[in-house]
């Protein structure tokens, strides 16, 4: 078990470093929110880090599971939630960007198959320098305050 965990960790480190060598880009914690039945748009979230020496410019995102992907940001202005398309995402060398509920997120249009918690989805990021970066996301039944729930779990059992 320990050996398995160790080798998984090694494998992860290896993939991360290979990816970083190729594009400088590291993708972590990628997930797609399981959608209610019949939803035509889903949301995806992930952490991006640029470990390379140069600014990375995102050209496009694609997945065989979705008809179209757009990058949007939720802005709450005077209590009104607005969806703002993010024209071009750039990550400077050494910088990280977080796509998370209530903030920047992937808009995933027209799912090609019903996606349920536990399913995996392949994505590809095309960079302006011609390189591309593949990553996998897990479908999760996401609660916005999942982190809080875990934190306070103990508390609620008392």
């Amino acid at each position, binding site marked *: 078990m320990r050996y398995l965990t160790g080798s998984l960790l090694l494998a992860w480190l290896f993939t991360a470093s290979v990816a970083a060598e190729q594009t400088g880009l590291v993708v972590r914690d990628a997930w797609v929110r399981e959608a*209610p039945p019949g939803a035509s*748009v889903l949301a995806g979230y992930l952490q991006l880090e640029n470990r390379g020496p140069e600014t990375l410019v995102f050209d496009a995102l694609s997945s065989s599971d979705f008809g179209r992907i*757009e990058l949007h940001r939720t802005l709450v202005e005077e209590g*009104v939630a607005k*969806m703002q398309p993010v024209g071009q995402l750039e990550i400077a060398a050494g910088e990280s960007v977080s796509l998370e509920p209530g903030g920047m997120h992937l808009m995933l249009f027209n799912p090609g198959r019903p996606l349920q918690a536990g399913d995996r989805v392949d994505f590809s990021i095309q960079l302006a320098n011609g390189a591309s970066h593949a990553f996998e996301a897990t479908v999760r039944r*996401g*609660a916005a305050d999942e982190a809080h*729930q875990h934190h306070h779990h103990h508390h609620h059992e008392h």
Partner: protein
Amino acid sequence: MILATVLIVVLALGGGMMAARLLLKPAPDFSELSATVFQQPRALQSFELLDHHGAAFTNASLAGHWSFLFFGYTHCPDVCPTTLSVLNSVAARLTGTDDPVRFVFVTVDPERDTPEVLARYVTYFNGEFIGVTGERAAIDELTRQVGVMHMRVAGEADAASYLVDHTASVLLFNPDGRFQGLFSPPLDADTMAAEFLTIAGALR
């Protein structure tokens, strides 16, 4: 006879003290809360909408229990599922407490959100949640009364994939069906549940 007099005096004193307590009872202070609570809850003009079973949803549907209302639309990828998940957590935290509560999702996109669409959508988050739709004019009138904004924004791809900017706050209605206050984003289930109990307890 003496006993009766004493009784009357005691009752009168007691009654007087109770009346004084009621009269002198300070208005509850909610200024420490992150929620906005109105000193004067606002009555709604009569409205007639449809719930996700196709039954009438009117002012009477808000009476007899507290209600959390959230306005959104089912094609909303980020804010609405996030908020409904938070409300599901609030519902879990309020299970078994003294004040009965209901959770209502009112669509601001009735053209796409029929009762059937809403039924599948809201019950995904919680089987007790109520989805509400109706005539465009009735939705607009209700949202106008409670100050909920909503504005259609053209999608990038085609006319049918439009988005709707909308108020992200959760509105709280008291058991008289009056608009009592609101929770503004960022929403946190623990805070909302705790503050709701404070509000409901003070106004009981």
